[in-house]
């Protein structure tokens, strides 16, 4: 550890207490990766602040020493957004885990960043309310992480993403100041810094308090599971449901390989012989849901569903979802290793893109299981490989990249909800021009001119703040002269 880092660690111990600072290599290893486990970096220092003020103290010290810092919540992110910096500080928010206020009359709650997503809904449920963003990891992921990643989930088709459900955040900016963006009401005067901050993947600072919106629980929820011969038929059903003017709470699809994995893992008992299953969920006032549900059922039948099951109660509904929600982990049953992609395409090109993914898989011999949020075109292809077999990892990476190219060429996005992180930053120039990326850098430079807040994430080769925009081929003159560093 460098002298600077040793001094920082000592400073943190004085300010926060020794039990909030980790420098022991063995204990540091606990934090070497997030949900993207094949990327590992052991941080120099881990701190576990308990308050906003402590967080600000830590960040200010990092800024003064020009030491990079990375924020981490529960570490469930799938894009390496919380991957530590070897010469930096990892700020873990898991000790800031208090629900400060639940205010159903104003339809909001105030929570600390380490609070678990599902615990917000648990706290609101007795009042008839819930927190809408529901990433599959909602039993363990933190609200602070949801804010950083602008997390989605199966139900964001109807209800939107984290950015639509946050009213305000208290933030420690990269220079260590505590400020509020937004608050307990809408439409705060000035630039929408809240909107810019949500989804910025830890590059614009760290949240220390979050005001979330709570939604009134719907009167009725109906869920069906429809089995189709293949993904084409299931895709047709999705299109005709949407073109009827129905916005279901969720429409999820799994293909044969994903179903096989889920059956092996959790015995969800999906219909035998299905080439694809759809889970469609509707919610709202009972009379509306009843009427629309019938229409959805009919559309599935018309599109070629050979079996439709309707959940009679919450237990059956949970069973339908069990297979879907366990799909990522379940793939472990049929393949030692896999890459999860998160590309998005316009819903209408779903069948065409799925066919091309199949062709890609056939052409390379790499197996791809498809699980996705069909309603909003968010694909989660699981690219399977065995790292023990030479060349397989490389082939899987190539297929994975080709799938992202497919998404971009069809007018989509490289990530719908997992974030860019360090995993997909190299794909950003395929989606955005140099001017687009440089313009985004202007926002970053306003917040973090020193480039200490989660450096190396989201953007491929960011310019140094204060320099003229434009990609640089050679090292920056300041870097070459040893006067500046690009983290």
């Amino acid at each position, binding site marked *: 550890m460098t002298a600077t880092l040793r001094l920082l660690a000592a400073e943190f111990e004085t300010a926060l207490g020794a039990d909030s600072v980790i420098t022991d290599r063995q204990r540091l290893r606990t934090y070497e990766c997030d949900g993207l486990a094949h990327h590992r970096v052991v941080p120099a220092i881990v701190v576990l602040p308990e308050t906003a003020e402590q967080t600000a103290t830590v960040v200010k010290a990092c800024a003064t020493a020009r030491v990079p810092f990375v924020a981490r919540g529960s570490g469930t992110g799938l894009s390496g957004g919380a991957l530590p910096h070897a010469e930096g500080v990892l700020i873990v928010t898991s000790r800031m885990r208090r629900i400060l206020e639940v205010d*159903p009359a*104003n339809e909001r709650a105030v929570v600390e960043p380490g609070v678990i997503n599902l615990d917000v809904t648990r706290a609101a449920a007795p009042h008839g309310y819930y927190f809408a963003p529901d990433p599959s990891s909602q039993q363990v992921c933190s609200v602070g992480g949801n804010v950083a990643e*602008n997390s*989605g989930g199966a139900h964001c088709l109807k209800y939107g*993403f984290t950015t*639509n459900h946050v009213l305000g955040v208290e933030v420690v900016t990269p220079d260590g100041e505590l*400020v*509020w*963006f937004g*608050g*307990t*009401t*809408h*439409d*705060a*005067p*000035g*630039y*929408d*810094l*809240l*909107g*810019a901050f*949500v989804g*910025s993947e830890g590059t614009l600072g760290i949240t220390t308090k979050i005001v979330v919106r709570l939604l*009134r629980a719907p*009167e009725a929820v109906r869920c069906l599971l429809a089995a189709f011969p293949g993904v084409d038929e299931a895709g047709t059903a999705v*299109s005709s449901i*949407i073109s009827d*003017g*129905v916005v279901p709470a969720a429409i999820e699809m799994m293909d044969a390989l994903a179903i096989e994995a889920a059956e092996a893992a959790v015995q969800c008992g999906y219909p035998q012989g299905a080439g694809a299953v759809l889970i469609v969920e509707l919610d*709202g*006032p009972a*009379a*509306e849901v*009843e*009427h629309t549900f019938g229409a959805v059922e009919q559309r599935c039948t018309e599109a070629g569903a050979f079996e439709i099951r309707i959940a009679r109660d919450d237990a059956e509904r949970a069973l339908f979802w069990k297979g879907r929600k366990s799909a990522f982990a379940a793939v472990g049953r049929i393949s030692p290793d896999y890459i999860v992609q998160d590309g*998005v395409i*316009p819903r*209408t090109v779903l069948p065409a893109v799925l066919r091309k993914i199949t062709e890609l898989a056939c052409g390379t011999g790499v197996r791809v299981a498809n699980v996705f*949020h069909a309603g909003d*075109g968010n694909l989660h292809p699981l690219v399977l490989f065995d790292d023990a077999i030479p060349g397989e990892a490389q082939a899987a990476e190539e297929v994975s990249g080709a799938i992202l190219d497919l998404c971009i060429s069809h*007018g*989509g*996005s490289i*990530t*719908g909800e997992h974030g*860019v992180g360090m995993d*997909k930053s190299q794909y950003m120039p395929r989606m*955005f*021009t140099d*001017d*687009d*990326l*440089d*313009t985004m850098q202007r*926002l*970053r430079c*306003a*917040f973090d001119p020193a480039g200490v807040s989660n450096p190396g994430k989201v953007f491929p080769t960011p310019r140094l703040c204060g320099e003229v925009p434009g990609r640089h081929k050679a090292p920056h003159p300041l870097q070459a002269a040893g006067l500046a560093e690009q983290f």
Partner: protein
Amino acid sequence: MTTRRRTPSRGGGDTAAASVIDELRAVCDDVRTATPDDAVDGIRPVLVARPGDPDGVSTVLRASTANGLRAVARGAGTRSTWGAAPTAVDLVLDVSRLDAVLTHAAGDLVVTVQPGLALADLQAALAPHRQRLALDGCTPRGTIGGTVATAFSGPLRYRFGSVRDLVIGITVVLADGTVAKSGGTVVKNVAGYDLGKLYTGSLGTLGVITELTFRLHPLPEARRWVTVTTPDPRRAAVAVAAVRGSQNDPVAMEVDRPGPGAPVTVGVALEGVEEGIGARADEVARLLGADAVVADAPPDWWATLPHDPSTGTGAVLTAEPTALATVLADAPGALRGSAGVGVLAVGLDPATVATDLAALRRLASAHGGSAVLRCAPPDVKAELDVWGPVSALPLMRRLKDEFDPQHRLAPGRFVGGI
């Protein structure tokens, strides 16, 4: 080049101006000398350029900034009295020729448009597909670009969110002519920073919008409006809370109070299918009280401002929803807006606007909100603090410095003199 408030920026006759005109005419086929009608909030520009395509916006802005001109973007010009008055304007960049629907992917519920398109014209183009942009306008001619730049949302925001929640992609031209986009054409997308949020409500101070992509929603099969009028502000607030706490899934919850002490009308909008909507409307009527009325059309004040949007004096008051009774009882002016969200428009008398605005700010600060002077005639506005307290202002200034280092875009029009 310094210019004081409310004086024309520069004489049209000097040679420097003449050479700038030549330069602008070289890149844009529609450049003219400004008239008094082109004044932005009382500040008269020298020139008006009306490029015919997005590239034209870029070349005009590049030339304009290189010559030290200060530019203000304009659509239909219906909201040029919104925000603070610019400290100076040399050039109005009129985007009204950029009025196309570029792509409407009906099956994907996504539309990409140019900023000069009138919101009403977009809705008319979408309606045959039984779709809509779930936003209410406030002026018949108002453009999409103006709606985004002013972040204007009406009653539907209760269910569908405000402008910021519906923009999924944006292309802008920065002061130096750089063309940049963020977001895209798919609803679900977290790649890169969401600059659409930053530009929404920025009053043209960070760049000129040249393209916008929105998520759309289906037009409902059936609609009902349930209203009740009561002299008792508390009863009105209780009614709103009762509906919000119910499971009838309203798409809008509005109030209208024509003046202090006047009766309050609560209006709730429902959307859905014919089969179920009647029963829901009856249930909402029951929650609103014995004299509630169910109708197939909105009340005449629905989705309008309680002041003239272009020439009137008005404010925006935000407060926690539970403060509604207090607000309805104590706030000055004419109140109308989204009670369910806690955002109300206030129509004010120019003669008493200073004391009224102060009263609104006291109310707002007691209930977690803010009171901003939305619009007022230039001579009225000159004496007032348009914005009130603003959190994180130093960061906002740094943002402006990054996006528009020479402060050439609508200088002075935004918070803190940005």
